[in-house]
């Protein structure tokens, strides 16, 4: 791992040759953004040293996205100033921001699948003569930039043949070659596998060598330590600290700055665990899974841990009857009928991997979102009892502390953490004996994360069973009584959680490096 550089102006090593600090890549001074009744960003000042990776962290609602929107010209600040490489910078539109040398890599990719890599690199910047496209220096520069940061991508390839990670790299190369001096990346690893993340990091590090400064936004704190030179922490719209990462003691300190209290979780054995199997799976096999067998006990929280593509989601979907699978699944002693509807009736509920596309009805309000899995309990002869439905929705909003003033709020208007709580509320109302949670805290802020963990523990303490499918080791280790380790569709090992769990052994197993070694 590269050593963090002299990231914070003012540190002794950052003093320039003639005693003056070098011009920062970007600095903001007294930046404030008011919305009616709310101050989203409150008098924030900090600066970012040139050619560093500067991380921006904070819980959902801390003001990160408002800050980024002001940097990219999507919003105008109420007051305060911004400076890019010493020059005043006040973008009135995203176009201005690009002219000013600030490019943004959003979570949704902006590449055209039908075109080649090279065509994508100069998308929107094509030169033409008499309506015909002509090659320009820009094309050559773009291809050179791509070759410099990721030589393995062939510029003549069609983008549709690339992986998500490679498409991202194409977008980065486009930003870099268009003359951006600062590239903002918003949760770039959300859709990437562990291996792809490593590659992206390598690209970002190489980018740093080419006189580009990266502002990196992520919920994943381990990434920030792996990649960042410096970090700025925001909380409730205010600037808490800007520090060189070498001065931060570790994740607990960072979390404490983000939420103002210390919450590092450790596993505490729970007395409610029984050894009475509620679900038994034998030889589950399909396009991804290779003869997976396990059982889940009553009152137990089990974890399925593996990297992206290891088969976690497939096991969850198979248990829920959403995908076809061969092998036997017995739930409460009986074979289960394989459809989501039958699964819910027999007492299994799933919080799916993608909350916006698979879990929520974003265009509907919270009320139907919460009641959907158990409309039977809220109806008589097919007629909905609307008073009961309202009461149930309000009860769950209150119980899970979903931040809203009304159950008639549209689900799309909630923050990620609250949306996830709505999906969990839906499953809780289904009154399931076995709750399957696929990546339950992905894209969720730290505060909501803790609350979700508490809900899970409370459920298991009441004698329900919970299965957590996660690619965050910390989550599985903090929460689960028993952990199944997956690699490439096979269940490689089962470990009982406790203080003496060997983390390096776990990582060994899930990365497949244990496979070639004979016992």
């Amino acid at each position, binding site marked *: 791992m590269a050593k963090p550089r002299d990231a914070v102006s003012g540190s002794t090593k950052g003093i320039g040759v003639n005693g003056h600090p070098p011009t920062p890549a970007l600095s903001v001074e007294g930046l404030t953004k008011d919305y009616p009744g709310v101050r989203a960003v409150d008098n924030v000042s900090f600066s970012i040293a040139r050619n560093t990776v500067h991380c921006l962290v904070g819980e959902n609602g801390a003001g990160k996205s408002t800050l980024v929107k002001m940097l990219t010209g999507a919003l105008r600040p109420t007051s305060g100033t911004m400076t890019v490489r010493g020059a005043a910078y006040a973008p009135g539109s995203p176009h201005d921001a690009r002219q000013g040398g600030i490019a943004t890599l959003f979570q949704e990719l902006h590449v055209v699948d039908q075109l080649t890599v090279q065509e994508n690199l100069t998308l929107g910047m094509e030169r033409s003569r008499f309506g015909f496209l002509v090659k320009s220096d820009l094309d050559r520069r773009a291809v050179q930039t791509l070759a410099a940061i990721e030589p393995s991508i062939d510029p003549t390839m069609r983008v549709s043949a690339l992986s998500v990670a490679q498409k991202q790299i194409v977008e980065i190369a486009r930003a870099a070659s268009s003359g951006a001096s600062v590239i903002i990346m918003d949760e770039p690893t959300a859709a990437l596998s562990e291996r792809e993340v490593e590659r992206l990091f390598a690209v970002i590090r190489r980018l740093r060598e080419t006189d580009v400064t990266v502002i990196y936004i992520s919920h994943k704190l381990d990434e920030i330590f792996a990649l960042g030179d410096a970090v700025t922490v925001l909380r409730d719209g205010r600037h808490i600290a800007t520090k060189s990462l070498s001065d931060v003691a570790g994740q607990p300190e960072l979390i404490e700055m983000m939420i103002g209290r210390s919450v590092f979780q450790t596993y505490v054995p729970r007395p409610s665990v029984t050894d009475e199997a509620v679900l038994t799976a034998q030889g589950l096999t399909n396009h991804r899974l290779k003869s997976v067998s396990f059982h889940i006990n009553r009152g137990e929280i089990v974890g399925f841990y593996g990297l992206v593509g290891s088969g976690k989601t497939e096991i969850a979907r198979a248990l829920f009857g959403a995908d076809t699978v061969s092998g036997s699944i017995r739930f409460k002693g009986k074979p289960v009928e394989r459809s989501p509807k039958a699964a819910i009736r027999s007492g299994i509920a799933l919080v*799916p991997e993608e909350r916006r*596309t698979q879990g929520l*009805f974003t265009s509907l309000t919270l009320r139907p979102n919460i009641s959907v899995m158990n409309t039977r309990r809220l109806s008589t002869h097919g*007629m909905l009892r609307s008073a009961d439905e309202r009461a149930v929705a309000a*009860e769950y909003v209150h119980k899970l502390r979903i931040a809203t003033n009304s159950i*008639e709020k549209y689900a799309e208007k909630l923050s990620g953490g609250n949306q996830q709580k709505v999906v969990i509320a839906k499953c809780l109302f289904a009154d399931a004996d076995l709750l399957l949670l696929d990546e339950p805290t992905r894209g969720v802020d730290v505060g909501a994360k803790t609350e979700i963990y508490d809900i899970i523990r409370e459920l298991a303490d009441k004698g329900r069973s919970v299965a957590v499918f996660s690619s965050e080791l910390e989550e599985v280790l903090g929460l689960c009584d028993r952990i199944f380790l997956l690699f490439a569709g096979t269940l490689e090992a089962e470990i009982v959680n406790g203080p003496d769990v060997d983390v390096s052994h776990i990582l060994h197993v899930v990365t497949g490096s244990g496979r070639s070694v004979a016992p």
Partner: protein
Amino acid sequence: MTTSRKTVETLSNDRRMSDETFITLLVASAAVGVFVLASAVVPNFFQPLNMLNLVTNNWAVISLGIGVTFLLVSGNFDLSVGGNVALAGVLAVWLAQSADGAHALSTGFGLPTTLAILLALCGALAIGGLNAFFVVRLRVPSIIVTLGTMMLARGIARVITQGSQRNTNLPDDFGVLGNLTLFDTAVKLPVVLMAALLVVAIVVEKKTVFGRLTYLIGANPVAARLSGVDKARHVTYLYLFSAAIAGAVGILLASEFKSGFSNRGMLMEFDALVISLLGGVAIAGGFGSVVGMVFGALILAVVTSAATGLVLSPDWQFILKAVAVFCAVTTQTWALARRHR
């Protein structure tokens, strides 16, 4: 329940109207607006009888609009209703015509009227079943499937009538249903059926689990499936209901005119689609209402009848419809975007 009653009240007491109520009110005021405008401009427009006729003359399209609206809300098209109107009418006539006609077009099967009507309804349901089979089982986009069955249904009607119509050799009781007037007024049975159907549809849409499932499937079919909604069965029901309505409309029209005409119901599928869209139903599904559709139908009826009243040639009707559609749909999109800003 552990939650205090006060919390429940605060959380569920939302005085802000829903997007759907907002759009329905918008469409309703547009309908009133064009009506007032037409009354001011068009001579003899503002008459009680004329107002009644606006609804009664459009009973067929409004009835079809009910099935089409439910399907649109679930995220599916039904373009087959117009063809189905023709098919059911032609089938009913053919089956009821006596078996001893002088030539092919006046010879049928001589079935009793009731049986003929029931079998014709089955014919219409078969088209609905075909729609459901292709859309649900084979997952072909509904716009393609129902475009196909639209031509298939009308094609069969054409073949049975040799491209024209069957109107001879029918038993007297065949003309009863379509011309029956009720309560000693000029209101015909089909209009009463439409009104009854509307009431049922509004209750189903707003008060039942079935109605709720329709919205959920349209809003997010993937999430609906993972929430235990049997989408396949539900969409099948919707296609069967829509086909049943189209069949009933076709049979009533055949009875009213005592003829099975292969061109009947031509372009009705598009009118049904247009009034749904005018009424605020989202083409992508998950949003809209039957009440909105009725107001949409009123807008269209006022615009077309006002044009006739202004002695514009009927050729202008399509252009006027086009203008109404563009205005309505852009206004709705704009109003919703503004509301959410």
